[in-house]
């Protein structure tokens, strides 16, 4: 599974657990509109760290948190393995 697919699957899984109804996930969707609260994002980032072995938001000092789904996925894709 590609990084993108893994991330989207993890988002859907957390949404089910947190009882969040997701709008259609496209790259332009702002993270705010996903309906996730900070706890849900924290869970998502922790799971992805285990799954993908990286946490792009802690790795670099000046990491800014992404604004859209596309930014979020790119943050993982752009980390050198």
């Amino acid at each position, binding site marked *: 599974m590609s990084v993108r697919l893994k991330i989207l699957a993890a988002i859907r899984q957390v949404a089910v657990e947190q009882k969040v109804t997701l709008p259609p996930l496209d790259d332009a969707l702002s993270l705010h509109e996903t309906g996730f609260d900070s706890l849900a994002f924290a869970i998502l980032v922790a799971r992805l760290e285990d799954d993908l072995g990286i*946490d792009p938001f802690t790795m670099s000092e000046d990491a800014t948190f992404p604004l859209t789904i596309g930014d979020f996925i790119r943050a993982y894709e752009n980390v050198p393995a």
Partner: protein
Amino acid sequence: MSPREIFALRDYLGPELKGRTISDAQRIVSLTDILEHSCLAGRLEELSGRSVLLAVADQLISGLVMTELDGVARRMLLCPPDLKADHLQSLMQDAEIDAVVTDHPAQWEGANSKLVVYAQPPAKAAIKARTERATEWLMLTSGTSGAPKIVGHTLEGLTGAIVADGPARGGAAVWATFYDIRRYGGLQIFLRAIIGGGSMVLSNPGEALADHVARLQARGVTHISGTPSHWRKLLMSGAAKGFAPRYVRLSGEIADQAVLDGLRAAFRDASVGHAYASTEAGVGFAVNDGREGFPAALLGIHDGVEMKVEEGSLRIRSTRTAHAYIGRQAAALTDVEGFVDTGDMVELRGGRYHFVGRRGGIINIGGLKVHPEEIEAVINRQPEVRMSRAKSRRSPITGAVVVADVILADGDDAGRGDEIRARILAGCKASLAPHKVPAVIKFVPSLEITAAGKLARHDA
């Protein structure tokens, strides 16, 4: 008896009881004629009135030396086997140690002005020892962080609960414990064996669990204690099959419903209970109704032990508590009213107090306080789970999240991981606030247990 009715351990080691033994994996030593023997090769008299460091690696010899020194030495400091060498110097100064009893005398060569006495397996002694004084028993706290503290006890205080409980029911008991007897939980069992006229089977460092249990069975162990972590390990191993003690006790950590139920299922004919005790507070109480926590009615005064809950933590005042921390900068052990603050946090639910964790063990999740033990108790309720550990992991978003490592009761269940994980999560959501629900649940083959038999908590 001895002057001023001082009692010492040797008073319980008369020749009238036949067939008593103390054993480890290598040896069986008869306790029936032990008073005619000594591990100190005729040098006990030299230790009279001294402050003795008991630095004996061998647990069996260490136990026998305790019975010799009690009533002779001014005080004895018991060293658990995992004591770090770098703490030793300052502990010896604090305890005003002027003599060392050791089975490794070469390590003490050049120990300035200290009397060093070699402890060896018991041999026939020329002179019988006499009780001269009430020896002070010094024990070390398990000190999960920093240097251990020295806690002062008397034999009378240490054995208060044993004397109150009376002799073991159902005939001579054979006692065993997963603890080392240089720790409070283990020492209680050793003292029960000595004072109650029974036998004792010691643990052996490094011994495989299956071999240990085989030995417990072979020696006919009837009474046995350990921490919930020790017991979970035993239940997981499958080695408990065929072992049928009649008395099973848990102490030293929170006994949750899952481990109590697991033990009841594994030992159908045994009385299964948990006891509250700590190095500082002594033995508080025992709970024998098979349920986690303790009835609120235990607060107040019962059997000479007074308990109250203040600022969420359990406080105990009794003659069984230690009398002081020992040392140059020792803090007060009790408050002005004589209560020991145990640091164990409790919560009242439905007429029963439940232990939720240690005051110092709180993890901080986004500014909210969480006791990992509370989360583990909920995870452990799932029948597929044998043991778990909750901890915090830093998070770029909330500062920290809870993550949990879980050991499955049946390794074969690993293929059903997703399903079990979903059930654990559902269980946590039903009983815990959202920030306490683990963000990540990982299945692991084992969890680290400390030398004191407790789940290792590095982040606490």
